[in-house]
């Protein structure tokens, strides 16, 4: 604890420290010598493949960052020029013949692509905002780039003047959303982009510095380091606009590796160089966002600039508030009163908040759990003396550190720093754990950090399930976690050729909408249909139905629909609008006589002419109604046919223009035409109720002003509609004289109304008084004008007597 600064080394204005990450658990026979090594950034994996021993087959081995063997197999393809890792932890093997093989973490082959049919001299795998890219130099000294291997687009860069074979050194730069190649050929330096090749010169590089033999670009593509054959090291911006420094290393051999070592917002950028045979044990440098990992055959260390906040706290004799707080807490644990003195000192400067923040932040940067703990305890201690200090940062850091410590475990082997973790985000971390099949750990982390299920646990379970492809087991484990996308799991299973399993899995999918497309793809159309129905989404049902219609023969299609009433109704709707004939077939098949009959009636009503066609449609309707045991409808339709025949006949004979009229309208028309006999016939044949017929005849005669005929009619028998109707109809036809003839015949309860209708106030008054009906008297009164004094008095008197009683 006290010697926390023991591994610090000052350089320039900053301190650098080396932290041991792992003792490698591998056991390499020949160390790292003679092997091609590719290490993934973010503390990911280090793998060690491919020895070029002349005789035997090379071996490809994959290890975790802590040296745990993950996969190992003999290399059977062609010679490999370069190895690299993609952003999603896939292994790229660039072969001499230009083909690139992709393996997953567990060494199983996934796919391959080609960088063009030419010999590859050198290749580089690089990462950019677009994904993982590959760049090669071909035997004809041309560069070819692919910026994103997932959306492969090969770009052949322009020729480099004077280049023979491969350049002495080159790097891929990503600048201004463009991918370029910087290369040196002898004394010259070129920038190569999509269209041009430009000679450049690093500013301030002394002319006698010599040819550039090694170059390196920083993790963020911001800085560039160049090494010359005279041992000069030039550093500057990758735009080649400004120079940071130039150092003479006094070493003329080309370094084996040169890697930038800086952290975001660091005080000074620096470069780590490694020469062969300078160290006893050959090592590999891995550039990281905030440092350099040094991997040797026995252990792995992280070299980084000491974060400013850690410097503040741990620097000898530091008086930073954080340092004082740490000291205060230490004294407090010893139960020493000095604790109070230190605290007082911080508080006097009102720096306690700052002190807590420093301790929390520094804890994040520490790799050693004891140091983390003591810093966090100090922070927690300091927090007690603050009243309104937000605990968020403290809590988050504690949580994140727990997660980081867990994934740093040698068995997991993700030596992430806090800075890297922040950069990569929790989502990606969980993805990485999932790729490495650390499902339980991933789930624990999700739960611990309370990530919403659909982003966290459910996703993990989905991935997990795609490996353990057994429905029951899947479901027991995935169980009722809400938001699990079973359809994705099922799609995976289907991809693996396990259709039955996929169907079983789909059963667990809550979103029917998601089930249907996959089921259709798997040709389980019946199931797709029932799932679509279940979803309630009618458009989905229609979609499946129209799919089925094209896939199946008609008979099977109808049978399928028959078992799905909802789908059947929807299809009927569709047919009603689009395919009338199919509709008939549907009803026929279902023996739905009622609907079939309706269908005929419908078609019939659309066809006024020619009559015989309509009649035959109606006859079909009658037959179907009979089959449906709908006697009423059958009878009614027969009546309709009878009426039609009658109309046709009369139209032909007399040109009456009856076709299409209702029975009532037909009788009216006949009466209007004076065809009383025919009207009478219809009235009897169709059993028209007396009341309606009387009304009809009454109105028709009055309209034609055949008053004599009307009177005769009124006397033909007792009117079934009473005689008030006669009065009113006459009045409506403006014939008061005729109207009065019928008043006396009106039933007593309607008499007042009748008298009023013919404007006979006296009569109305008499009738009302006779009936001793108060409201009728009132009604008559309301019609009296001031001149009817006598009448008014009489009515009023009668009213009072009526009320008394």
């Amino acid at each position, binding site marked *: 604890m006290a010697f926390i600064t023991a591994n610090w080394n000052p350089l320039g204005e900053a301190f650098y420290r080396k932290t041991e990450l792992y003792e490698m658990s591998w056991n390499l026979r020949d160390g790292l010598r003679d092997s091609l090594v590719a290490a993934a950034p973010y503390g990911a994996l280090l793998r060690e493949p491919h020895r070029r021993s002349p005789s035997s087959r090379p071996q490809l081995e994959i290890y975790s960052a802590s040296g745990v063997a993950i996969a190992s197999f003999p290399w059977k393809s062609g010679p490999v020029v370069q190895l690299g890792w993609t952003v999603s932890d896939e292994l790229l093997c660039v072969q001499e013949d230009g083909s690139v093989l992709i393996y997953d973490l567990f060494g199983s082959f996934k796919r391959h692509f080609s960088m063009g049919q030419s010999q590859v001299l050198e290749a580089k795998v690089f990462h950019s905002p677009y994904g993982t890219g590959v760049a090669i130099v071909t035997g004809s000294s041309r560069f070819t780039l692919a910026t994103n291997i997932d959306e492969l687009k090969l770009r052949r860069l322009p020729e480099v003047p004077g280049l023979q074979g491969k350049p002495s050194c080159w790097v891929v730069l990503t600048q201004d959303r463009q991918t370029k190649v910087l290369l040196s050929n002898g004394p010259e330096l070129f920038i190569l982009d999509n269209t041009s090749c430009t000679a450049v010169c690093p500013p301030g590089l002394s002319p006698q510095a010599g040819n550039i033999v090694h170059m390196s670009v920083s993790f963020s593509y911001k800085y560039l380091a160049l090494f010359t054959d005279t041992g000069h090291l030039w550093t500057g911006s990758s735009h080649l606009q400004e120079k940071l420094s130039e150092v003479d290393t006094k070493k003329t051999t080309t370094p084996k590796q040169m890697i930038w070592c800086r952290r975001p917002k660091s005080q000074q950028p620096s470069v780590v160089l490694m020469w062969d045979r300078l160290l006893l044990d050959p090592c590999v440098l891995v550039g990281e966002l905030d440092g350099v990992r040094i991997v040797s055959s026995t252990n792995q260390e992280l070299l980084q600039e000491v974060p400013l906040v850690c410097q503040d706290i741990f620097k000898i004799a530091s008086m930073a508030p954080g340092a004082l707080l740490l000291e205060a807490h230490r004294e407090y644990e010893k139960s020493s009163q000095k604790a109070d003195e230190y605290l007082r000192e911080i508080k006097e400067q009102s720096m306690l908040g700052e002190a807590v923040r420093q301790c929390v932040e520094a804890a994040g940067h520490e790799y050693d759990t004891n140091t983390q703990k003591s810093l966090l305890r100090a922070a927690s201690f300091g927090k007690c003396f603050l009243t309104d200090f937000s605990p968020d940062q403290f809590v988050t850091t504690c949580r994140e550190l727990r997660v980081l410590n867990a994934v740093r475990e040698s068995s997991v082997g993700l030596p992430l720093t806090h800075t890297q973790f922040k950069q990569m985000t929790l989502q990606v971390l969980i993805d990485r754990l999932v790729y490495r099949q650390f499902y339980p750990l991933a789930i624990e982390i999700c739960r611990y950090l309370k990530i*919403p*299920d*659909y982003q966290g646990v459910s996703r993990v379970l989905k991935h997990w399930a795609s490996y353990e492809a057994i429905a029951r087991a899947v479901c027991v484990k995935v169980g009722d*976690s*809400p*938001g699990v996308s079973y359809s994705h799991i099922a799609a995976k299973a289907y991809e693996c050729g396990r259709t039955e399993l996929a169907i079983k899995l789909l059963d667990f999918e*809550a*979103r029917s909408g998601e089930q249907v497309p996959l089921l259709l793809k798997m040709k389980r159309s019946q199931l797709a249909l029932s799932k679509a129905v279940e*979803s*309630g*989404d*009618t*458009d*989905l049902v*229609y*979609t499946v139905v*129209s799919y089925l219609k094209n896939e199946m023969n008609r008979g099977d299609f109808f049978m399928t629909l028959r078992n799905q*009433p*909802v789908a059947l*109704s*929807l299809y*009927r*709707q*569709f047919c009603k*609008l*689009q395919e009338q004939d199919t509709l008939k077939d549907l009803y026929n098949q279902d023996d739905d006589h*009622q609907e079939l009959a*309706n269908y005929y*009636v*419908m078609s019939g*009503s659309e066809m006024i002419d020619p009559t015989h066609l309509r009649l035959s449609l109606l006859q079909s309707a009658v037959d179907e109604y009979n089959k449906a045991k709908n006697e*009423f*409808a059958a009878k*009614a*339709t027969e*009546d*309709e046919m009878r*009426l039609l025949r009658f109309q046709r006949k009369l139209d032909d004979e007399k040109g009456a223009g009856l076709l299409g*009229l*209702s*029975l*009532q*309208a037909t009788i009216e028309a006949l009466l209007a035409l004076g065809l009383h006999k025919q009207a009478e016939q219809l009235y009897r044949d*169709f059993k*028209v*109720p007396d*009341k*309606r017929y009387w*009304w*009809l005849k009454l109105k028709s005669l009055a309209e034609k002003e055949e008053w004599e005929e009307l009177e005769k009619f009124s006397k033909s028998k007792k009117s079934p*509609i009473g005689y008030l109707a006669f009065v*009113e109809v006459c*009045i*409506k036809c403006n014939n008061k004289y005729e109207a009065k003839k019928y008043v006396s015949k009106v039933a007593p309860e309607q008499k*007042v*109304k009748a008298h*009023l209708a013919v404007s006979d106030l006296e009569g109305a008054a008499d009738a009302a008084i006779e009936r001793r009906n108060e409201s009728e008297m009132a*009604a008559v009164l*309301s*019609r009296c004008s001031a001149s009817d004094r006598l009448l008014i008095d009489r009515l009023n008197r009668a009213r009072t007597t009526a009320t008394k009683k």
Partner: protein
Amino acid sequence: MAAHLSYGRVNLNILREAARKELREFLDKCSGSKAIVWDEYLTGPFGLIAQYSLLKEHEVEKMFTLKSGRLPSADVKNIIFFVRPRLELMDIIAENVFSEDKLHSSREFHILFVPRRSMLCEQRLKEQGVLGSFINIDEYILDLIPYDGDLLSMEYESAFRECYLENDQTSLYHTAKGLMTLQALYGTIPQIYGKGECARHVANMMLRMKREFAGSQNQILPVFDTLLLLDRNVDLLTPLATQLTYEGLIDEIYGINNGYVKLPPEKFAQKKQGEASKDLPTEPKKLQLNSAEELYAEIRDKNFNAVGAALSKKAKIISAAFEERHNAKTVGEIKQFVSQLPHMQAARSSLANHTSIAELIKDITSTNLYLSLVSASEAFFDNLTVEQEFMTGVDTDKVNTYIEDCIAQKDPLIKILRLVCMQSVCNNGLKQKVFDYYKREILQTYGYEHILTLNNLEKGGLLKPQTSSRNNYPTIRKTLKLWMEDANEQNPNDISYVYSGYAPLSIRLTQVLARPGWRSIEEVLKMLPGPHFEERQQLPAGLHKKRQQGENRTTLVFFLGGVTYAEIAALRFLSQMEDSGMEYIIATTKLINGTTWIKSLMDRPECQTP
């Protein structure tokens, strides 16, 4: 512009704003000048969301109605089709696009499906070979449209017909989706009650959709405490009856469409001095009716018989306010008076409008019989008398003379159907003899093709033969107190005022649910069609409402298959009752009345005899 939406207990303007935002976003997706080609059916509902000015701000320069043939010429960059997902419309669009391409090749086409895109339609466009011509194919999810401060409507006309006649549950799917959207904006509704098959189906879909979204929990404090889903077929009676509230009568007589009514212009002629009255306007007067108009909000839900008094009271207040100017002495007082002037003038013109409307209605409903012969008013009164006889269970098992007479007089078929259906519902089905008699009379008088309409009414349960000898309507009527003898029209104390005596069954169910609960009416619920149920939706911890003492609960009542203005009035009345402790927000597939409802159930209603 839509401030009246935010006055209520629940701020429905949030929903409207969400809808507007989405519309703007879509319009901006098609950059440059545009012309919109409208599926005509959509213009009404869209009017409730956005006026032309909003479209104009987003470079909409022309609007056309979708019809076959060639598109009218317009110098715009984008042509956008706003359509419902219907196959027949796709064919028209295809025709439009085909005839267009030859003329201008530079115009860009887009489709906006309302309320949801459809694979079926896209397939159709593909078959027609035009799918590739569209730059954007999008959906505009417009399920529930804010119609007024306490009212949401889907403006989905055919919902009842589709559900009960055609077994097509598309509207229910949209309903469930709409309710999910509503919950996304206003929080999960913890309690769901329902009655009826469709209600059950909607609730099932909602629960299912919730499961589908599981994992992403809604963190909004719930605004609604309860959702009540009611099938229209649980209460077939109410829409058949003639509504007697002011708004209900306007709808019955003139029809309110998407919040607008068209009235005969004569009574609205501006009486200006010195101007001859000969140029009476001939165009119908179009008025917007909603609670933004203070006076209308006050009288819309009153029984029509109480409207006259309310109007004259208002008239006195307004003229008194205008008289104030004589009292205004100081400059300050005059200034204050002038500042109130616009408001007062608006109130005066609103008063004038409603006085005219009330006169128009009065001419028709005036119950002073004997005054005129076979007049509209007498018909109205007689009709009402028969309705009330049916509702009180008088002679419902016999052929009714009035109906017979109306048929003989060839009154409009829909009127006949309303009455016959009402008799059937109030008698739990007609005796076979009566049933056949009515049907024969209708077929003989109005034409045999109406056998299909009758068939539809039977399928929908509005008209049916009696199957069991027991008529359970009287039990229902008594238990739920559907008929109140002494309905007070002026100062109502019960919802029965909206039909001058009849208390709408649907609203009684709602009322009983709030207090004392449905358990008290198990028996009656069993007599009504479809299951009744209760579901609970888990709220995330911390979102449980801490209710203040005396704070009202809020219930969303969703009428599947339509609701009438009178029912809405009854619910508003319940919300205002001091001791009810419940506020109601109303949602529906469509605002209906007996006439529009029956019409929607007719096959080819256009060929009915006038």
